[in-house]
């Protein structure tokens, strides 16, 4: 088994609200290995984005983080000082955000924004930084990269901008690349190209790619492992084939029924839906958070639910 790049044990993120403490992430454990793509799936508000922001140390103001363990390539992030975290961010761990239209600075050139990471982390001088930026822009499929260096974000299309954002994140060859719904804001025709690029870069640079998405189609295409999140918890986690072929948690099964499968789903059939709503996470949450929507719920579901596992995956359910 390959080297562990990122390990999270029982991560929690609590956000104080007027109504009380919102337990947005409740004991999430994840492991991402070098040369592997881990997809974190779940619906909006399940805590998947907050999980990645917690790793980066970029949680919104007021949010409280707790964890048993949080390690980046063997380094304890829980003990890292703010300045140590700054040194790791952009260098050992990098992040790609959802909307490429807004996450590039409108008043700085592409080249300036790309090279500043490299220069700040002391990877080399300006010339080397520019060379690396041009090489990476070419690698992410931007034609005439040398000429693009002096351009501003508004001169590029959304798809090109996301490629720039990806190249920018790779300037220092991070151990872990966190991508938060990197294709959600893009046209469907551009999405596939970006995903294939991310998967290829992950293999070439032998990094751990943690891709947050709500799109199971994306997961099926590029994931090695998948973690399914629901209401701030990982409810099922394992090798992508195991989770897709033999989903064990009722929520995962519900999700699978929501997507059409080529050759299996007959034309004209209604796709599945999961009845009910995501639970309210303000205040104490006990037992399985999915029990209110679960067709198999039983009285014991109100008690703490143990994690069960087989050779290929683990799930948090009594079934």
């Amino acid at each position, binding site marked *: 088994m390959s080297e562990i790049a990122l390990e999270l044990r029982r991560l929690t993120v609590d956000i104080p609200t007027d109504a009380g403490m919102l337990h947005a992430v409740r004991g999430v454990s994840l492991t991402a290995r070098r040369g592997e793509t881990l997809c974190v799936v779940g619906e909006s508000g399940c805590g998947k984005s907050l999980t990645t922001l917690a790793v980066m140390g970029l949680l919104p103001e007021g949010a409280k983080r707790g964890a048993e363990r949080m390690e980046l390539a063997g380094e304890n992030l829980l003990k890292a000082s703010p300045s140590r975290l*700054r*040194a*790791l961010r952009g260098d050992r761990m*990098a992040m790609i955000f959802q909307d490429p239209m807004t996450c590039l600075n409108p*008043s700085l050139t592409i080249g300036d924004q790309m090279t500043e990471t490299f220069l*700040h982390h002391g990877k080399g001088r300006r010339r080397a930084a520019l060379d690396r930026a041009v090489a990476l822009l070419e690698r992410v499929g931007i034609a005439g990269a040398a000429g693009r260096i002096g351009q501003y974000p508004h001169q590029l299309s959304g798809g090109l901008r996301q490629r720039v954002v990806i190249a920018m994140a790779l300037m220092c060859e991070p151990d872990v690349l966190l991508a938060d719904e990197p294709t959600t804001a893009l046209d469907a025709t551009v999405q596939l190209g970006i995903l294939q690029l991310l998967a290829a870069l992950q293999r070439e640079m032998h990094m751990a790619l943690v891709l947050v998405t709500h799109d199971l189609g994306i997961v099926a295409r590029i994931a090695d492992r998948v973690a399914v999140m629901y209401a701030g918890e990982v409810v099922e986690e394992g090798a992508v084939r195991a989770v897709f072929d033999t989903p064990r948690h009722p929520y995962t099964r519900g999700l699978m029924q929501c997507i059409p499968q080529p050759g299996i789903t007959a034309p004209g059939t209604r796709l599945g839906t999961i009845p009910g709503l995501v639970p309210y996470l303000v205040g104490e949450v006990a037992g399985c958070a999915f029990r209110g929507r679960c067709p198999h719920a039983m009285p014991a579901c109100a008690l703490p639910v143990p994690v069960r596992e087989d050779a290929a995956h683990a799930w948090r359910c009594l079934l």
Partner: protein
Amino acid sequence: MLGFALRRAALAVAVGLAVSAIAFLLLRVSGDLAATLAGEEASAAEIERIRGLYGLDRPVIVQYGEWLLRSLRGDLGRSLFYPESVAKLILDRLPNTATLATLGLAVALLLSIPLGVVAALFRNTWIDRLALALAVLGQAMPSFWFALLLIFFFGITLGWLPVSGTEGLANFVLPALALGWFSTPVLMRLTRAGMVEVLAADYIRTAHAKGLPVRTVLVKHALRNAVAPVVALASVQFGNMLSGSVVIETVFALQGIGYLAWESISRRDFPVVQGILLVVALFYVVLTLVADLLNAWLDPRIRSG
């Protein structure tokens, strides 16, 4: 960028011409100049003589054309009161006003931008409220009153600084403080609003995700995007200061443009008033052009737009 600059410059010339025409016409419609000049007891013949002497009997368009051509050569005519030419009168006083305005703007920017940034960083804390209180105080206090307080405290009680005259740079400290203080609140509030908006932007989160130092994030990534409206407003404020603050110049006995304008208006010295109007209007035109260019330099989207 060059194309943008040329387009803006052409626009500035057009605006300058329009403004000169308005400046000229405003004075003509303010009453019969010949009658005013001749005095109250003048006979009709005398008024007509003066009308002919100053060329006021010719069509307005001819008068304007002649005045414009002469103005372009730097000849703004003669004062009706002083022995000097209008151009010399203005040029003599311009350095005082320009020094005062430049220092005043420097005071305003040095106070408002750091205060606005700090208020945005600590928004809704006591620091933010203190900055707001200062802003309210600054805007609520009449500038002559603040100037008098400065004179009383620094000039008389402490005796640190001269309170009147234009001998040296020290003479400009108190007037510049009084002038700058008055522009600070609005510039500060604008800086704060801009920073609050920009600090919430996705690209600031990106900058943090790169591990950049807080200072780099604040200055390079945030402030640059937040100051565009501040630049625009500051240029207008600078225009106000350059056109001469009658109040501040009077309180500190500074022989500047504002004081001259006020004097000349009360004496119906119309060539001087006209000259000052033209010069001040041209200041605004130039400053607007400079602000446009500065903003285009700050924000590349404006350049191509």
